[in-house]
């Protein structure tokens, strides 16, 4: 495997993994909105 191909693969796959992880982490870290929000599992009374 050539150095160029190796670097390209590592750079693109690593960047994609980091960006995916970053956005998902941001979703997990964002506190839920006050009710009523879109999600039923944090409701006090089931809909």
């Amino acid at each position: 495997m050539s150095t160029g191909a190796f670097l390209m693969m590592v750079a693109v796959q690593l960047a994609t993994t980091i960006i995916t992880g970053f956005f998902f982490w941001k979703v997990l870290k964002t506190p839920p909105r006050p009710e009523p929000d879109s999600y039923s599992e944090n409701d006090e009374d089931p809909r």
Partner: protein
Amino acid sequence: MSNQTDSWGTRVGLILAMAGNAVGLGNFLRFPVQAVQNGGGAFIIPYLVCFLLMGIPLLWIEWSVGRFGGRFGNHSTPFILDKMTHRKFWKYFGVFGIFTNIAVAAYYCYIESWTLSYVYHSLMQTFSGMSQTGIADFFNGYTDVEHSTTGIPYEAVVFYLICLFLNTWILSKGLSGGVEKVAKIGMPLLIAFGFILALRGWTLGDSGATAGCTDCNSFLGLDFLWRPEFTSLADPKVWLAAAGQIFFTLSVGMGTIQCYAAYVRKNDDIALNAMSAGWMNGFVEIVLGASIVIPIAVGYLGLDWVKENAGFAMAFQTMPYLFQKWGAFFGTMAGFMWFGLLFFAGITSSLAMGTPWMGFMKDEFGWNIKKGAWSFGLLVLIMGLPTVLFYQEGVFDEYDYWAGTVSLVVFALAETILFSWIFGIDRGWEEINMGADMKVPSIYKPIIKYVTPLLLLLVFLAALFTPKDNNWKRAFSDGWELDKSSIIGNITHQGIEVNKDYFADFFESGVAGKVNRIYEERNKVKMEIGDATTGAKLATYEFSPLKHALQFREGDLVRKADHLATGSFINKVFYTDMARLYLIALFAFIAYMVHKATKKRALEGHLA
């Protein structure tokens, strides 16, 4: 219109369901094949550029359009688009957002049923000891409905029905109770299975090379996929292929994203959700999809073989053969993980396809979730059985082309123009940013208004007027001759040169050459025609020993259009046109339902 009664359970569940909708078999099969066919490493740069300029904008457009529609109690595209504009005809454009899903689900469930069946066959070690040709023939036998590989009569139909039942049953449990639960189980498993198989792709090297094979090395496969070839960036064909791949991988232009997003409330985020789901799909495609089929196949069969044979069928006709080389236990596990991974990729997408119809019937006619789900199952069954029964006659491919390819581009182009130019980019931008948990880069405002519609228009025009052999350079310099794969070429049956009548008393040869051999297989007589000089196989034709009389013997020379056999024939063009009529009938039926809903709304005073 209905009140919002169905909902997502959690935000992560919504993102996994949306990512599951996008992640399909194409991530593992279409992407690497497209990369191989478009110069390997040259493909990845246009691919990433198109993701930034077309993929991300389309995701934001569809999420915000969906959430906008949901605010007014609309959960499918006909009345979502209707609410965005005062021109009445747009709701009939929205028919695409239901039609495409039913038509695609009809044949997609069939692919899904193959994966389910192959999970079973992997666990039963059916492929153990089979040659590469034997495994390829096994697949051909499987798709021949009269043949059975397990002893179950009409096995392909049985697995299709099981798969469709499973989809319908899950859909009948609703969004949070069905779709979201499957996504929460399926997506992590898919990523885990994909990672284990990708590890093998990254590390196989030349350990699987057979004696004498000089290019059997998985690193050669990775090198071919990732070596940057900047000269190819000037080739329009590579750019169009990249744009096409981005388009299909994200499941945009279908109406499913809008439907899922319609259950998100006004003040909840869509911008970050869209990014998270979109990049998750990118991760599965770029990191996992690129590291399984091609490197493993190159490791065992060689780079030249893969360059010549790369295609969708590799998943079913090649991979089980390669897994056998890992020994009985690991081979069985690899087969289970590979087809299990494809099954999860498939079912999370096909479930999404059920929701626009269910949302529409609930909004407009008050149908509950169960009634909506089972009616979707019935529609898919009616539309899907021809793809199962007449798979080898080309019905499946016809559905895939018109519903799974052309319709997506047409609808995405229309909705992008509607969003940016009719609804208005200012209102659209406000919709995207409303409740956003991230700062949407302002550069995307002009991109959404100008660049994305232009790119989509180019993709559409390129599909409409594809030049002969997809050779753009020659078309621009030597004059434009349409390729048979162009939309116009397809409509006019440009690719059909022989056997042009629906019914005939003879069957014409599509190639010139020599009859290599005539043999019997699965109660059919097969005639293989090869190159007159080298003997290389050109085509194999199938005849019924009871209905047809062969006119040539082994060793005979054959010219194109020679009558190979006489008897009673129904030609492929008949099935092709019937498939088209079937699709048109489905579109007309949904358009009629939209018309009926419009009248009902007018009576109930919903319309201004």
